[in-house]
Each structure stands twice: as structure tokens, then as C-alpha cells.
């Protein structure tokens, strides 16, 4: 498999009046063509920041301090306006956590989809007619299994349910051909039966179109059922990565272990006490491994030097923890 | 016990420090604060700081009439030779007194009626209070104030009454909106189900959360009340000559335009500066509370 997206040593800070938040602390990860990748971590660990950095849609107070993002041999961070627009129109698409906020409240759904179709369509030379755009919009709405697509096109977003709105977002992002879909907590705001349907729909579409996907979630189960490979993130670092089954059955990093143990199981076998403490203060993050204040195994070196994400042998399992990398 | 007290003090000081930080982030807020402080100082100390304290009243000094701004009379003199600078500074006194009196009269009924209507949202109490308030808002404030002032005898005192009578519903509305939004907050529901009395909920739980918007509005309103008061005087329905009221001075100076422009222009600029100062200050205070709420 060829790598599609490669993020290397990405550092991103946010300027605030209290000081600089050093959020991303050297993030590394790769997505191959046709690969389904999951990204897990609790709120505030930098998942969304990473994704927005990839699309170059970071907030205005964000500073990219270092690192490279390569998408198909081109440097995302060095792209000019035109290349960037091209990438957003033709190659990468993003779905947001809250479909209510992601759809402009004062335009009809049909209007919103039409704009995407109009500007992202490959047929740049020929002008798209209104009817053509409408047929194409109806087509994608049918593809995301929305009942009564005609009525949906003429509705405002707030007249539809949360599940339908998220389907519309998916439809918009897949209205034209793309290669990579970034889904940022796409089902967090949805009910469990709707979540199930949306996840299945996304998986199905991604597989049928041979897309790559990055699925971000703090709900570990949703990731497990959808992706091939999982990255775990903590406080701006990738701390562990492995094939999905391997990661869930044999977590190595103390944080991943703690996280998995605190999830209640359907088997009713109970859950742990959770992980004590909070995500660190990003203005003065701990030196060395950022998990050290909450880690029960912390050693001297953990307070001095940041561990690298390195292979521990089997099944592509990588972990960034001094327990596994003796110096 | 001593340790506990010091913790309280530290946290209170930290709170003030954070508030000050948010306020002072914008230099304009500081400018507003300085203007407001200077205005209040000038108003209080007017008789001691102006060059011709007696010119506040009906004094004639015909030999110096219509003098343009110069070294003796910094802002020039008016049609009967009074010092425009001295009268303008005295004008601060009337303007700020008007604002102080009107706001003192208006805030208690406005805030309390808004709290009650908002807390009893959806009941007849809400309907009664808010419909009455709506009636006062059904015409532009200045028009109603002019009419009320006209029915009374024109004077500074009656102008204050007129402005107060139409000003309270704006507080009712503001507090009503905040209160009815807070009514659904879980902490209010929690207080209600634990058995706290409506009095405790309204004044103990809800009111502290309304203070931010109220304080902001009070500050901004100082400017607006002064504006309205000067407009009344300008028309002739407020303070009467020879009272050194800024609006009255602008109006009477208008007769000598454009040759003796300074008679109107300096009081006019003074009005603008006071309003600007309190507007900037109000925005600064809003910044504190908007960020606090986040």
C-alpha cells in the first residue's frame, strides 16, 4: 500500500492571553491508500487540532511550530491558495462532530449541497445546469439512504433530525469523488441506534469507493467496529498504534490500558476506578512524557525525556513509553 | 481558621485581578475609565477648579461678550460675556446628577419587576408586568420623555422625572430576558426541588447571575441618560437658562452660529466626550462578564 497522508513531527501551539498552549507535541502518523484508521483519545488531547492542521483550517490564533504534512507527495504546509483549494475540493473531505453547527442554518439543504457540487465537480469546463446539480444532489442523498430526498432538499437543516443532518454532511462530503475522509466524532451527538446506522453507512461508502478514512472518536467501541488500525493520542502525542484487534486486546501504554479498563462492558464485569488526574495544563506541560503525573509506573527517565513512538515487534504495534524502550 | 480566611482573601484578590486583566486588555476601556473618572471629578470639584465660578449663574459681563477662545477665556465667552469653559465644567455637574438620579430611581423597580416576571414566566404575573412594560416601549423613548416633560413644567427636576418614567421598562426587559433564560438552568431547578423559597431563588441564585448585564447597562446608560437629558434641554423642555446645562447651552449658542461657534461647540463636544467615556467603560465591563461566562 502506498502512503496517502503522512504527518511528521507536527507541533502546533495556540496563542492565548495567558500564554502559549503547547498542544501538539510532535505528532506522527500515516494513512495509506484505502486504509481505515481510527484516532482515539479523550477530549482536549489534540485530535481535532491535528485534523484541522491537515486541512489548513486551524483557528487564527494557532501557530504551526514545526513538522511536515505530506499528502500524495505534496507538502500541505507549503501549498499556495490554489493548491489548497484544489486539495479541499478534490482530495480530502471532513465531517464534523455536530451536524447542527456544521450546516448553515439560514440556507436550504439543497442550496448547501448544490454549492459543493458546483465547486467540487470535476467537469470544470462545462457549466453545470441547475437541473444537473439537482439530479446529482438527489443522487447523493439517495446514496446516504435518506428517505424522501426531494423534501430534504427543500428543507432547512433545523427541520431535520440529528441523524438526517449527519447523513446530509456525509452526502455533501461525498457528493464528488475524494480520496480521504476525515470524520471528527461523527456520531457523538447521535442516539445509539442512529449511530449504528451512520457508522455502517460510512463504512459501506468508504469501502465501496475505496477511500481512506480517519475516524476520530473518544468512544472506543465506535472505532473498533469500523477501522483497521488505531492510533491512541494523549495530550498532543501519539502514544500507541496497532491493528485494531491487537490494540483492544493487548494495550501496552499505561494510558491506553487505563482507558480501556474504565469502559463499562456489556458482559457486566465491572470497570476500574478510572485514571486519576486531568489532562495536563498545556501552558506548562510536564517535561518528558506528558502522562507522567498520572502514570503509576513513572520512572526517572519519564520526567526527563519524551519517549518516541517505536515498534515493539509484532503486528505493527508501536508504543511511546519508556517501559518498553530501555535506553 | 486563619488559614481559611487568607485563602478567601487570596481567591477574592485573584478574582479581581482576573477581572481587571480582562477589562484592561482593551486600551479603549482604560480610556473610558479615565474619561469617566475625570468627568466625575470635574462635576464634584466644579466650583473649585473653574476660572470663573460665578459665571455659572446669571452674571453679565458685557464688556467681554462674544470673545473667541483666547488666553483669558480658554473657550471664549457667550453673548453676555460669561466664560464658556466655566459653564461647560458646571454642565458636567447637571449631566451627571441627572444620570445618577434617573438611574437610582429606575434600577430598583426595573430589576425587581424583571426578576419577578422572568421567574414566573408563562403565568399571568409575567403577562401583566411585561405588557405594561411594552406599553412604555411602544413609542420612541425621546418622544415619550418629551411629552411627559411637556405636560409638567420644564425644569431639571421634571426632566429627570420624565426620563425615569420611560426608562425603567428597559431594565425590566433586560433582566426578564436574562432571568427567563436562567430559569431553565439546572441550578435553579435544583434549588427549587430542594425546597428553597422563591425569594431565595430570585435574589440569592438568579440575581447574582444578572449583575453582569445590569452593571454593563448601567454604565452605558449613564451616557444615554445624559444624551436624553441634553436633548430635552436642547428643545427647551429640560433645564431652563441660566442653568449651565450642556443641552441648554448648545441650544442658546445655536442662535449665534456660525460666527460665535464656540458658544455651542464646546458644550456639544463635552456632551460627546462624557457619552464616549461611559460607552467605552461599559464595553470594558461587558468584556469582563462575557468572558467570565465562558
Amino acid at each position: 500500500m502506498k502512503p496517502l497522508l503522512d504527518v511528521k513531527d507536527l507541533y502546533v501551539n495556540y496563542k492565548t492571553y495567558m500564554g502559549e498552549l503547547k498542544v501538539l507535541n510532535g505528532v506522527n502518523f500515516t494513512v495509506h491508500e484505502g486504509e481505515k484508521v481510527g484516532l482515539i483519545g479523550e477530549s482536549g488531547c489534540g485530535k481535532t487540532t491535528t485534523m484541522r492542521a491537515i486541512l489548513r483550517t486551524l483557528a487564527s490564533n494557532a501557530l504551526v511550530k514545526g513538522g511536515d504534512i505530506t499528502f500524495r507527495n505534496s507538502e500541505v504546509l507549503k501549498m499556495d491558495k490554489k493548491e489548497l483549494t484544489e486539495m479541499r475540493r478534490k482530495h480530502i473531505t471532513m465531517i464534523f462532530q455536530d451536524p447542527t453547527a456544521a450546516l448553515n442554518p439560514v440556507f436550504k439543504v439543497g442550496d448547501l449541497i448544490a454549492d459543493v457540487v458546483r465547486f467540487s465537480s470535476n467537469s470544470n469546463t462545462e457549466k453545470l445546469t441547475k437541473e444537473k446539480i439537482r439530479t446529482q444532489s438527489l443522487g447523493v442523498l439517495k446514496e446516504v439512504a435518506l428517505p424522501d430526498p426531494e423534501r430534504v432538499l427543500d428543507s432547512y437543516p433545523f427541520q431535520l433530525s440529528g441523524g438526517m443532518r449527519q447523513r446530509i454532511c456525509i452526502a455533501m462530503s461525498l457528493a464528488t469523488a475524494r480520496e480521504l475522509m476525515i470524520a471528527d466524532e461523527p456520531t457523538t451527538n447521535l442516539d445509539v441506534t442512529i449511530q449504528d446506522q451512520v457508522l455502517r453507512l460510512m463504512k459501506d461508502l468508504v469501502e465501496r469507493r475505496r477511500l481512506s478514512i480517519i475516524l476520530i472518536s473518544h468512544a472506543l467501541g465506535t472505532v473498533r467496529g469500523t477501522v483497521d488500525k488505531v492510533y491512541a493520542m494523549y495530550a498532543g502525542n501519539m502514544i500507541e498504534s496497532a491493528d485494531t484487534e491487537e490494540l483492544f486486546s493487548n494495550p501496552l501504554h499505561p494510558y491506553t490500558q487505563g482507558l480501556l479498563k474504565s469502559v463499562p462492558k456489556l458482559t457486566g464485569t465491572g470497570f476500574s476506578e478510572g485514571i486519576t488526574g486531568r489532562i495536563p495544563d498545556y501552558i506548562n506541560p510536564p517535561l518528558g512524557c506528558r502522562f507522567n503525573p498520572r502514570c503509576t509506573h513513572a520512572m526517572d527517565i519519564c520526567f526527563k525525556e519524551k519517549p518516541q513512538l517505536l515498534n515493539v515487534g509484532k503486528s505493527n504495534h508501536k508504543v511511546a513509553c519508556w517501559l518498553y524502550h530501555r535506553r | 481558621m486563619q488559614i481559611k480566611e487568607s485563602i478567601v482573601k487570596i481567591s477574592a484578590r485573584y478574582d479581581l485581578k482576573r477581572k481587571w486583566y480582562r477589562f484592561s486588555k482593551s486600551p479603549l476601556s482604560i480610556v473610558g475609565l479615565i474619561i469617566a473618572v475625570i468627568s466625575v471629578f470635574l462635576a464634584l470639584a466644579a466650583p473649585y477648579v473653574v476660572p470663573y465660578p460665578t459665571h455659572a449663574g446669571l452674571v453679565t459681563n458685557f464688556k467681554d461678550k462674544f470673545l473667541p477662545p483666547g488666553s483669558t477665556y480658554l473657550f471664549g465667552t457667550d453673548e453676555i460675556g460669561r466664560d464658556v469653559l466655566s459653564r461647560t465644567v458646571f454642565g458636567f455637574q447637571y449631566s451627571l446628577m441627572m444620570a445618577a438620579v434617573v438611574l437610582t430611581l429606575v434600577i430598583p423597580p426595573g430589576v425587581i419587576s424583571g426578576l419577578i416576571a422572568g421567574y414566573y414566566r408563562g403565568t399571568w404575573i409575567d403577562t401583566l408586568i411585561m405588557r405594561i412594560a411594552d406599553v412604555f416601549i411602544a413609542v420612541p423613548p425621546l418622544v415619550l420623555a418629551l411629552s411627559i416633560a411637556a405636560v409638567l413644567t420644564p425644569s431639571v427636576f421634571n426632566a429627570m422625572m420624565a426620563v425615569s418614567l420611560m426608562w425603567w421598562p428597559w431594565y425590566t426587559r433586560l433582566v426578564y430576558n436574562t432571568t427567563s433564560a436562567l430559569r431553565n438552568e439546572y441550578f435553579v431547578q435544583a434549588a427549587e426541588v430542594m425546597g428553597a423559597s422563591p425569594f431565595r431563588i430570585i435574589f440569592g441564585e438568579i440575581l447574582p447571575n444578572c449583575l453582569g448585564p445590569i452593571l454593563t447597562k448601567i454604565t452605558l446608560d449613564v451616557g444615554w441618560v445624559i444624551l436624553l437629558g441634553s436633548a430635552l434641554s436642547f428643545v427647551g423642555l429640560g433645564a431652563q437658562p441660566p442653568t449651565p446645562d450642556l443641552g441648554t447651552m448648545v441650544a442658546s449658542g445655536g442662535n449665534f452660529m456660525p460666527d460665535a461657534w464656540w458658544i455651542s461647540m464646546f458644550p456639544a463636544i463635552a456632551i460627546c466626550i462624557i457619552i464616549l467615556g461611559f460607552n467605552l467603560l461599559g464595553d470594558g465591563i461587558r468584556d469582563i462578564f462575557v468572558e467570565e461566562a465562558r
Partner: protein
Amino acid sequence: MRLSTYILKRTAFVIFSLIGLSVLVFVLARVLPGDPARMAAGPRAPEEVVEALRRQLRLDKPMYEQYFYWVTNVLHGDLGYSLVTRRSITADVLEYLPTSLELIVLAAIFEIAGSFILGVIAGRYSYKWPDNLVRLASYIGISIPAFVMAIILQLLFSWTFKIFPTTGMLSQGIERPPVVSGSVALDSLIAGRFDAFVDVLWHMVLPALALCMGGLLQDARIIRSGMVENKDKDYILMATSQGLPDRTVMFKYLLKPSVIPAVTVMGLDIAALMANAFLVEIVFSWPGFSKLGITVMLNKDLNAIVALVLVIGVIYAIANIVVDVMVAYLDPRIRLMERGE
């Protein structure tokens, strides 16, 4: 809810407020200290004259009876008789109101166009120099009362630079066209008198600017803040991340939701225009409603004052309904959103 139902609801609400307003001003005029008959007759009139006047004005009857009589007349278009102008108040209103309205309408046009242009420029270039300039201007602009603005404009542009006429409505030598609508600008057009039309517009520029300047700058700031705030919304992020052109994102996705708050406060803007017209018309000696208003107010003509407040209330109410409909048109959430307990 359908738009028509919405309008109907708003209208019912407004009519209710107007009834309340009529009671309020009527009662105030009679409860506040002072004997209306004595005031009308003048301080030196003999007691018999005052007594006769009192009977003529029905001031000897109980208050509810007076109110009922008055309301019946108002509903028939009869606002009463002015003791100052010595004629029917309805006739006075019809003569002076249109000239004020034409001034207000021009000011409103200036205000809407100006605030939109400045607001969008500031929002587009937020935190850059055009934005800083607009914000600074807005801080200063809203602190200048309309009558002060009028004096400043007059001093600068008519006394000093002599670009615009200082006062009045028509230049000397230009006859007023025959009265049809009451508005001089309209009447000029009707009569085909373009010289008069241009002349009256020329006279209206400064008063209209003085009227609208504060509101214009304030609205510009509202539009600007709306745009700056909405720039961080997910829907803008989504539009950007899908590669829509900046133009579309800025002028379609960002602009429409951002102007709604400015349109919402337009009711208050209209209130300000109507009230400020009273002051600005004095400065420019514009023969409008304020001339009538100030005259009856200074002479304590209660009937006329009550009538004027009510007329202004009605115009304001109509303007507010129009604003509400505009907001509902722009914001589908207001039109169609479910409302419940």
C-alpha cells in the same frame, strides 16, 4: 408557523400595546398636576371662560367617559382640536407628517446602505486597518447626539465649506409644487418638477446624515461583530474545508447569518430616527412634524400632545411589524421553528 400567521400574531400584539399606550398618555395627561383647561385658556383668562372650555373639552365628566369619547373620535380619524394652532389636529398631522417622513425615509436608506457597506468591509478585513477605522469611527459616532451631529455638519458643510444649504426645504426662487401627497420630494415628481426635486433632495442631505449617523455606525459594528463571531462557526469551517471559494464563503455563508442581528435591531433604529428628527429638524429649520410637536408641547396643548404620541406610536408599530417580517424572512428559524412550553 406560516408567515401570514406570524404577521397576524405580531399585529395583534402591537394593537394591544397601542391600546395600552393610548390609555397611558391619556391618563398621564389628566393625572399629572395642572389644569388642562386653565393651561389652554391661559393664566389671565376669566374663570367663566375656563369653565366653559372645561365643559367643551368634557373635562367635567368622569375619566373613563372622556377616554371612551376620545377613542371613538380617534377611530373615526378625528384626533381632536388643537387649542394652539386653532384647527383640527388631523389636518395638522396631515400637513406636517409627510415632510418629516420623507426625511426619515432618506435617512433610513443612508443608514441601511452605509452600515451594510462599512460593516461588511470591516468584517471582511477584520483586525486590519479598515476594521480598526470603522470601529474607531463607530465608537466616536455613537457618542455624538444627533443634534450635535447636526450642528457640526451644518457648521462644516454649509457655513464653512458652503456645499449644502444651511436651513429650510427649498431654495429661494423655487416654488413648492402643488400639495398631493404632502411630501415635497414626491409632489415634485408628481408635478414633473425636477428642479424642485433635486433642490429638496439637496436640502435633505445634511439633515438625513445627521439623523442616521449614530445608528449607521452602530449597525456597521453589529454586522462586523456578527461576521467576526460567525467566522469561527463550524459551518464556515465546513464550507472552507470543502474548498468553496472565499467569495462564496464570505458573501453567502457568512454574510446572511451575520446581518440578521443588525436587522433585528432596526426597530430601535427607526425609533431613534423618529425621535432624533425632532431635534435635527430644529437645527435645520425643517418644516416638519417636530415644528408642530415642539409648538404644542411648549404650549401644553394636551389634546395635541396625546394625539401626536399616538400617531408616532402607530407609525413606529407599523415599522416594527415590517422589521419583524424582514427578520422572519431572512431567518427561517423564526418562521418555522417549533415553539412550545
